[in-house]
């Protein structure tokens, strides 16, 4: 359905980060970090908790102050936050708004007219059109995260940054949401932060393991086949082993 896919009149932007550095409480989380993220693909940042994955994502989103030597380039037109949509660990639905009002939050905040038609179509895509006028409190955790996904898609940005958006869900709901996200985000440049190697293997075209202190990004792992994949297929068991090795090494290095 055209409503969810990103218009392909321009190529989805790549992201390149040079010399990224971030200090937290006097200690370097990472320093001199370079990474290039390909446009139009799903990239996973995998790493142990507290290594700085979320901070790197927030740096790209423009939510962390950037040091003067850090260069973040989004696509060819440089450094525009307007190209980026951000989805956090929690659904962040506003409890005083209805589901549909939450989906159109961006327009409300920018003082624009909300495209209710499109919001309803997106809610339909995530299977929650019949709950459009409910308050978030009436929804389950999985439904709320689906609304958050619809809200992210509503922004219709070419770059989507996701910070462990499925971490708090049960295995079955998580699996369904991963499939839905993979389907709805096709064609966009997606960066997904996760600590779950299976999630990375399921969704990513490419996986970076982030490890150490200050943290560095390991050589990228290309995952064959189109996401969403069956993560326990034998073809990926070798990759799973490699990822676990890297993560274990990362953990002992810390």
């Amino acid at each position: 359905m055209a409503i969810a896919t990103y218009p392909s009149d321009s190529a989805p932007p790549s992201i390149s980060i040079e010399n990224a550095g971030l200090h937290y409480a006097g200690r370097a989380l990472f320093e001199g970090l370079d990474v290039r993220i390909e446009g139009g693909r799903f990239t996973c940042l995998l790493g142990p908790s507290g290594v700085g994955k979320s901070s790197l994502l927030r740096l790209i989103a423009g939510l962390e102050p950037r040091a003067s030597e850090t260069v973040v380039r989004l696509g060819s037109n440089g450094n525009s936050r307007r190209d980026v949509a951000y989805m956090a660990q929690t659904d962040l639905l506003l409890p005083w708004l209805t589901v549909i009002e939450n989906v159109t939050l961006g327009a409300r905040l920018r003082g624009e007219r909300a495209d209710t038609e499109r919001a309803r179509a997106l809610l339909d895509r995530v299977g929650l059109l019949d709950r459009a006028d409910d308050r978030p409190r009436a929804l389950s955790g999985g439904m709320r995260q689906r609304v958050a996904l619809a809200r992210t898609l509503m922004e219709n940005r070419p770059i989507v940054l996701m910070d462990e958006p499925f971490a708090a869900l049960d295995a079955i709901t998580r699996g369904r949401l991963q499939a839905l996200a993979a389907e709805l985000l096709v064609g966009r440049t997606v960066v997904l932060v996760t600590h779950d190697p299976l999630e990375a293997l399921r969704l990513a075209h490419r996986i970076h393991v982030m490890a150490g202190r200050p943290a560095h990004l390991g050589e990228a792992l290309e995952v064959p086949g189109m996401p969403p994949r069956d993560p326990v297929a034998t073809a990926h068991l070798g990759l799973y082993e490699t990822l676990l090795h890297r993560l274990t090494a990362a953990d002992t290095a810390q």
Partner: protein
Amino acid sequence: MTVLRPIVVVFGLLLLWQSIVWLTGAPPYILPAPERVVAAWWRVSSSLLSNAGTTLLEIVLGIAIGALLGIASALTLSSFRRLRLWLLPVLVASQAVPVFALAPLLVLWLGYGLASKVAMATLIIYFPVTVSFFDGLRRTDPAWIDLARSMDASPWAILRHIRIPAALPALASGLRVAVAVAPIGAVVGEWVGASAGLGYMMLHANGRMQTDVMFAALLTLAVLSVALYFATDIVLKRLLTWQPDR
């Protein structure tokens, strides 16, 4: 049961009151029996009602002005960091001065009429409203603000669409406290100097040993305050349906 419970409590208290009168044999000018108070209430009911009207007006005006000033102050404090550094200590220090000690001054400056009592009620509720709303505005989930910033929201839009609505439950708690304490301000103001109001009536009756009238006025004040509190509570709950029930 919800209807029965308050009735049982009220009758229990009346029974306790009556039995204390019986057991101690206290004279009516010390502790009048319930039926004497009811009789006094009927006798002076028109005067009681008009005085209650005066007190109610003082309370409602005090709440309205105090709440508006408190809301404005909290918004100012949370929006201007520099101003907050100067004003917050002043605000806290001002609470160290007992408001009751100011009552004679207020009567001296604003006269025996309505203004001094409204000022008392305003002063007494200003602080709880300001502090609770300011606290609510300060405690907005930073992740909500990040989300809004990623949607290119201006600071004003974040205040209007996220921080103010998120702080409304805190403001509601402040208003509940305000409504509960506002009658104290009005009555203290009336004690210091007034020509009308339930506080004035109590003082007047006290000086004439009309203890039963004093009790009738006290009872009227209690009913007024409780009714005002519950009315406010119901309105606030209606307005904030999204807030999880405690």
